[in-house]
């Protein structure tokens, strides 16, 4: 008798693998294949393959969008791995946002990375793996899956932040991001272990049902607070935002755009899954907690952004304030779960378009000015009128001026907090309104510098915008305008979400 047959007898019935729905996993499979393909092409083609990398990565991301669209057209919800992985309209929309943001990041990186003499194959490989983590996060409905997705998206991002290896500022950016990120993961995991200990499961659905029934308990409170604090680092909510400005400033600018948009949205997606599919029953705890986080983020982010002289740092603090706006609907998460969830998702989609656009214009202008100081962009209208108009569109959209996309995003948040009809909701509405006014000041200040101030050194040579960067700006500007002029587009998508479970978690019995 051979060893193998002995083993076969000992191990009982033959192993049968779980049935796997490959159509539902197709976006992830495509992304993974392209990431591996890039590594192969890079190691075979060496220097000759370098110009191919951005094209390959961009096509791969658009290729991964095809199964997302076919799944959306087909329309039925698919539940995999015993409920740990769900592909529904909500997760498909978020996957599409991640893939398109990734595509724009590749467009922004194309010339920046090629001209900077950096490692290209590895750069796009890590970028795709990080995006893979985000796409997985959109579907994750299980604590362990969320944790693995979070690390898959974070660990490549630590390396990308430190990509300019010889530059101490970039090293510092990577180190700060890594230490804060790892600390946050540990805090979050400790919270998850407590939640697991109370509920005996890592799946969010049963956790939600148990939390809705048992009411408050000190262990649950501690666990939920730790988990939410862990993700507050990821979305750079005050008081856990300190890494963001330094990391954005030191990292290569396309990576800063990646962290400010894709990585931040991934943090919010995790918060959406955790709160709306798991912790909703603990409304007495999560509503005040997120109210405080949102209020602090808006005020601190906006007030510090007022006195920034570097455009990247200003965008970083404005990103902190924007995170506050996105956290605001969570403050009425249990009072009006459906409207607040839709408001957060709407804000996320529009934020991706307008913030990526702002970073794209900064990258284009910095090709000429070689500086991130806001004053160096003075008089940009005289030598780069199109870029100045585009930047004004993005800045006023971030400020929430109609008819730009940011207006509809702010309106959705405002409507959601008012609609809840709670005192906290009304107070939050006032805070959102006050902060929109504060934010307008520093966004308008940058626009004023670009339109009216004299050119600092009198150098009027036009900015050479490479085609990929130009296409990225056109794409993001078009989306920003589209969402503002036709808000119904996004409304139709969010209306199709199947959110029947929310009532069950928020109002048990």
């Amino acid at each position, binding site marked *: 008798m051979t060893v193998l047959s002995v083993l076969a007898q000992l191990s009982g019935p033959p192993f049968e693998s779980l049935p796997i729905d490959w159509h539902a996993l197709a976006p992830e499979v495509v992304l993974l294949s392209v990431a591996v393909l890039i590594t192969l092409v890079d190691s075979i083609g060496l220097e000759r393959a370098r110009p191919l990398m951005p094209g390959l990565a961009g096509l791969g991301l658009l290729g991964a969008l095809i199964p997302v669209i076919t799944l959306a057209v087909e329309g039925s919800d698919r539940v995999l791995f015993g409920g740990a992985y769900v592909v529904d309209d909500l997760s498909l929309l978020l996957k599409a946002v991640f893939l398109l943001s990734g595509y724009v990041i590749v467009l922004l990186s194309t010339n920046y990375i090629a001209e900077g003499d950096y490692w290209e194959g590895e750069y796009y490989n890590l970028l795709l793996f990080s995006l893979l983590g985000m796409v997985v996060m959109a579907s994750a409905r299980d*604590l*362990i899956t969320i*944790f*693995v997705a979070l*690390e898959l998206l974070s*660990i490549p991002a*630590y*390396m990308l932040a*430190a990509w300019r*290896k*010889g530059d*101490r*500022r970039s*090293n*510092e*950016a*990577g*180190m*700060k991001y*890594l*230490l804060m990120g*790892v*600390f946050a*993961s*540990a*805090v979050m*995991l*400790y919270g*998850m*272990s*407590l939640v*697991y*200990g*109370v509920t*005996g*499961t*890592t799946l969010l659905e049963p956790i939600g049902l148990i939390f809705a029934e048992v009411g408050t308990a000190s*262990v649950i409170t501690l666990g939920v607070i730790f988990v939410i604090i862990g993700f507050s680092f990821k979305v750079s909510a005050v008081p856990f935002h300190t890494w963001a*400005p*330094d990391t954005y*400033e*030191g990292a290569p600018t396309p990576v800063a755009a990646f962290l400010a948009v894709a990585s931040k949205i991934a943090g919010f997606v995790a918060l959406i899954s955790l709160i709306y599919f798991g912790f909703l029953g603990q409304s007495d705890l999560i509503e005040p907690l997120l109210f405080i986080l949102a209020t602090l983020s808006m005020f601190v982010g906006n007030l510090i952004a007022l006195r*920034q002289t570097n455009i990247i*740092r200003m965008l970083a603090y404005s990103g902190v304030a924007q995170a506050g706006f996105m956290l605001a609907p969570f403050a009425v998460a249990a009072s009006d779960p459906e409207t607040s969830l839709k408001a957060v998702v709407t804000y996320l989609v529009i934020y991706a378009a307008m913030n990526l656009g702002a970073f794209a214009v900064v990258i284009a202008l910095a090709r000429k000015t070689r500086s991130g100081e806001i004053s160096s962009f003075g008089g940009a209208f005289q030598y780069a009128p199109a870029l100045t108009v585009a930047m004004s569109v993005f800045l006023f959209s971030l400020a929430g001026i109609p008819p730009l996309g940011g207006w509809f995003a702010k309106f959705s948040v405002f409507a959601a907090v008012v609609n809840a009809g709670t005192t906290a909701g009304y107070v939050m509405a006032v805070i959102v309104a006050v902060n929109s006014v504060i934010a307008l000041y520093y966004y308008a200040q940058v626009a004023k510098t670009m339109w009216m101030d004299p050119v600092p050194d009198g150098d009027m040579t036009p900015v050479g915008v490479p085609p990929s960067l130009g296409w990225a700006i056109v794409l993001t500007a078009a989306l920003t305008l589209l969402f503002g002029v036709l808000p119904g587009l996004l409304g139709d998508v969010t209306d199709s979400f199947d959110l029947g479970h929310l009532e069950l978690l928020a109002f048990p019995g």
Partner: protein
Amino acid sequence: MNGGVDAAYLVLGAVLFAIGAAGLLVRRNLLVMFMCVELMLNAVNVTFVAFASALGDIGGQVAVFFVLVVAASEVVVGLALIVAIMRRKPGATADDISLMKG
């Protein structure tokens, strides 16, 4: 809960976690800061295993394997970054990586 959870394990986990968190905030040596993070992650592992064995559920023990693998890959990236920083400035501490402020 408390279906046979030995409180000693949970206390051990909590104490380890607190030591790690305090160390990360207080110590300035980058390597020691990483060791403190490892301590925090292992505190999580102790807690997961304690709950898993009390609940008779395999999920918590599976989580530990994921935490171990992720901790290893985080350390790989972290050590690479420390090497990059030490090359530029030998003997650097957390106070030296403060070029950017404001």
